[in-house]
């Protein structure tokens, strides 16, 4: 008989370190938002009245107009392109259907700098007009890029892919049968689109638009450069210019309100996605064949956003970077290293924490754990400016307590430990991008069914063996995806980096911002180009995953 003493376990409750870790992580990551909320409540009437009398109306008006414009723009580019590439067939459809995602790689502030460089008074376009006509300054009208309208166009050009992606998935899911039924009931193809296809895709479109509007609200680089006063610029101006934490937090509080409304809207629409999604497998869809001039027109329509959102700015950036920019190589290498190193470390932290949280929720059927995971993911909805303020305030407080304490006991003077160091920056990144890595890791872990763990155990594997022989090989892909996405997001992130970076510590994004602010747009090109190129990696990953998903569903329906 086998000796069972060492292999049996007593049924006593053990210390559940995973659960404790999950709650601790969630509590720490929710610190910035709590700080902002507490400061909102601390404000007295005066601050309010002052904000109300001076800037508030301006901020609200600009932010709303910006959201309205970008929302409309993203809708009218994203939805038609999604419908055309999923329901019709025309020359270049396959290429265009993934190329429409390319502008996602372009941070809004970089496209803003690039178009300003192209279109402003000294830029090639206006110079060309003047050379051609002989007009001089003031004698002709030209579109002013650095305006609210310009900001709307810039943000639309890089944010429409969210609407495109979501509505395309929804259109692809709609079964051919649903649309055919409507035809047998006497609807023409066109009215079937408006009465059926569009309403069915509505929840997905709303989700896409919500993402667009959240990014619009969070944008700092574009509006700041274009001189459009919105909440994000207001928050940083109040914080830096006047050193007024409470007033900045008040503004952040209102911004938070906007974001909350958006999230609730999105929840509501997702609730209805579940309602709409049918369990039926999609029939292999017969696409409407567009040939001749209609095909060419359609192709041109879908090419238009890619052309302006990606091809032109990237070509110009590449030209500037190669031939015109003045930036010493050594300094550029330093910038690149700073960025890559920071993004790499942040990605590791976010993924390790995501693994801890994901396993905590897998191994505990406990409401406190799932609530913790929910809270830990909240940061993604928060604009970087809010997180920056929410990070710097408590860390500075903590630093000063430590300085006082050390001074009291030893008389020594110590510097800042958390605020103004990379710790603050890494913390803010983790708060902001936790949800991204959590999503990727949970998605991967969800594919390892609990019964696989049990199968391993019943075949004689210890829990550790199950982890190394089943979980690690199966999770590798999702973990790499999570690392990559966080890495790129950190590389692009501007406002939080701007506020929290240590003195004299520059990244590619910050340097591009600084050079642009000094009107050295061309010199900013190498840094900008590098951000865009690195940003292409997750876009390629995304486009591959959507094309493989389509193939996969084909295989399923073939069976």
């Amino acid at each position, binding site marked *: 008989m086998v000796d069972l003493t060492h*292999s*049996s376990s007593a*049924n006593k409750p053990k210390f559940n370190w995973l659960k404790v870790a999950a709650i601790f992580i969630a509590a720490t990551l929710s610190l910035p938002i709590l700080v902002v909320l507490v400061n909102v409540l601390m404000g007295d009437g005066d601050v309010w009245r002052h904000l109300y009398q001076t800037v508030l109306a301006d901020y609200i008006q600009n932010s709303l107009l910006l959201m309205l414009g970008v929302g409309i723009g993203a809708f009218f580019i994203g939805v038609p392109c999604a419908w055309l590439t999923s329901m019709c067939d025309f020359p270049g459809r396959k290429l265009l259907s993934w190329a429409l995602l390319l502008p996602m790689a372009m941070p809004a502030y970089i496209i803003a700098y690039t178009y300003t460089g192209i279109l402003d008074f000294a830029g090639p376009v206006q110079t060309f007009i003047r050379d051609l006509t002989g007009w001089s300054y003031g004698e002709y009208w030209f579109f002013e890029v650095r305006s609210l309208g310009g900001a709307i166009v810039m943000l639309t050009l890089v944010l429409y892919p969210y609407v495109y992606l979501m509505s395309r998935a929804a259109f692809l899911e709609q079964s051919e049968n649903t649309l055919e039924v409507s035809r047998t009931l006497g609807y023409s193809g066109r009215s079937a689109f408006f009465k059926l296809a569009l309403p069915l895709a509505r929840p997905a479109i709303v989700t896409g638009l919500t993402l667009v509007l959240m990014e619009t609200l969070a944008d700092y680089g574009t509006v700041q450069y274009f001189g459009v006063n919105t909440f994000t610029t207001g928050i940083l101006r109040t914080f830096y210019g006047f050193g007024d934490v409470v007033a900045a937090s008040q503004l952040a509080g209102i911004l938070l309100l906007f974001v909350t409304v958006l999230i609730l809207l999105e929840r509501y629409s997702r609730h209805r996605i579940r309602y709409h999604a049918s369990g039926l497998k999609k029939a292999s869809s017969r696409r409407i064949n567009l040939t001749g001039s209609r095909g060419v027109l359609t192709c041109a329509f879908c090419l238009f956003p890619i052309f302006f959102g990606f091809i032109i700015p990237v070509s110009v950036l590449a030209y500037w970077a190669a031939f015109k920019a003045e930036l010493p190589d050594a300094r550029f290498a330093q910038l690149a290293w700073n960025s890559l190193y920071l993004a790499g470390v942040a990605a590791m932290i976010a993924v390790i924490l995501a693994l801890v949280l994901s396993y905590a929720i897998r191994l505990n059927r406990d409401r406190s754990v799932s609530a913790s995971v929910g809270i830990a993911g909240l940061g993604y909805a928060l604009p970087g400016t809010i997180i920056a303020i929410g990070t710097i305030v408590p860390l500075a407080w903590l630093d000063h307590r430590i300085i006082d304490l050390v001074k009291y006991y030893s008389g020594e003077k110590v510097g800042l430990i958390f605020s103004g160091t990379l710790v603050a920056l890494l913390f803010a990144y983790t708060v902001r991008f936790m949800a991204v890595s959590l999503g990727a890791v949970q998605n991967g872990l969800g594919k390892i069914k609990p019964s696989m763990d*049990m*199968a391993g*155990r*019943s075949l004689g*594997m210890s829990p550790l063996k199950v982890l190394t*022989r089943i979980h690690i090989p199966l999770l590798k892909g999702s973990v790499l995806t999570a690392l990559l996405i966080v890495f790129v997001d950190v590389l692009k992130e501007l406002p939080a980096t701007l506020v929290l970076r240590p003195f004299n510590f520059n990244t590619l994004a910050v340097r591009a911002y600084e050079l642009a602010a000094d009107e050295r747009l061309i010199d900013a090109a190498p840094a900008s180009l590098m951000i865009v190129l690195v940003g292409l990696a997750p876009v390629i990953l995304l486009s591959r995953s959507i094309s493989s998903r389509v193939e996969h569903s084909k295989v399923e329906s073939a069976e």
Partner: protein
Amino acid sequence: MTPLPPHETLKEMTLTKVTVGYDGNAIVKEASFQLREGQIGCLLGPSGCGKSTLLRAIAGFESLMSGDIKVDGEVISSTSHTVSPEHRYIGMVFQDIALFPHLTIAQNIAFGLSTWTKESAQERVDHLLSLVGLSGFQSRYPHSLSGGQQQRVALARAIAPKPRLLLMDEPFSGLDAKLREELVPDIRKILQHEKMSALLVTHDQMEAFAMADQVSVMDAGVIHQTGSPYQIYHEPETHFVAGFIGHGDFLSATVCGPDCVHSDLGTIRGDLDHGFADNTEVDLLIRPDDILHDDDSEFVGVIVSKLFRGSHFLYRVKLSSEKIVYCFASSHHNHLVGQEIGLSVHLDHLVMFPR
């Protein structure tokens, strides 16, 4: 890790008043039964009755709130100790199959053979592949197999290390009816070939009857009856078992003697004492094949609906008391819905429960 050598076959497994649950809520209450060498047992019940939880407790994935589980006299689960699953020599086949997607078919089957020598493991894998009819599939990956093939691989993987007991959690639920009919006798044959005891969980009584030597009917966490399929069908011990197994109706009846009752269909005599006192109000179990179409009978009913089953009709007939019962009739007796037909009762054994 303790190596898992090929193990002796199971002589008997005994569950004594096993209670399983979470946070103080018992999901399985005081379950007791015994499974002997070479037997295929079955836990049968509606979904949510606790049968899967009980299976997981036997596999070692749940600890007990009370009672114990013994295998060949050795306690593997009790309130104070739970032998971990990897040391139980108990294999399991899962409802969702749960093959490892990153391993080939051969690697999946060999997963539990890590302590075997390379040659003997290879031999075992080859043997099992031919046993489940999948020779030549060893280097394929699970996703390229059909549902039925995956299920065979899952079975081969579970029995590869020669566990002393095989547990199967709704193993056929994901398969279509035709495949299931093919697979059930195959698996029975394979288990007999390996001389392995097994315990199956299902909500499908046809599956239970086809696979099992011994069926335990469960509801709401309680085992109502354990017995052969024949016993479960013809001699149900509780009202639930009588209603759950097969088609059946309950007729209101009054006891009129040690072997007889009065009912809507007249006085019915059984061949055994039923043990109820005279004048007790009871529910009498009537199977469809107990009521026959009989034009000479004094008892009549109105046809409410009918199902043509090829060799026979299955009528639903409303009696004068408004009670609706099943009635078998040969397919020559084609009657219309709304017609009145004569009925006679043919019962040997009275199954009844106090009302």
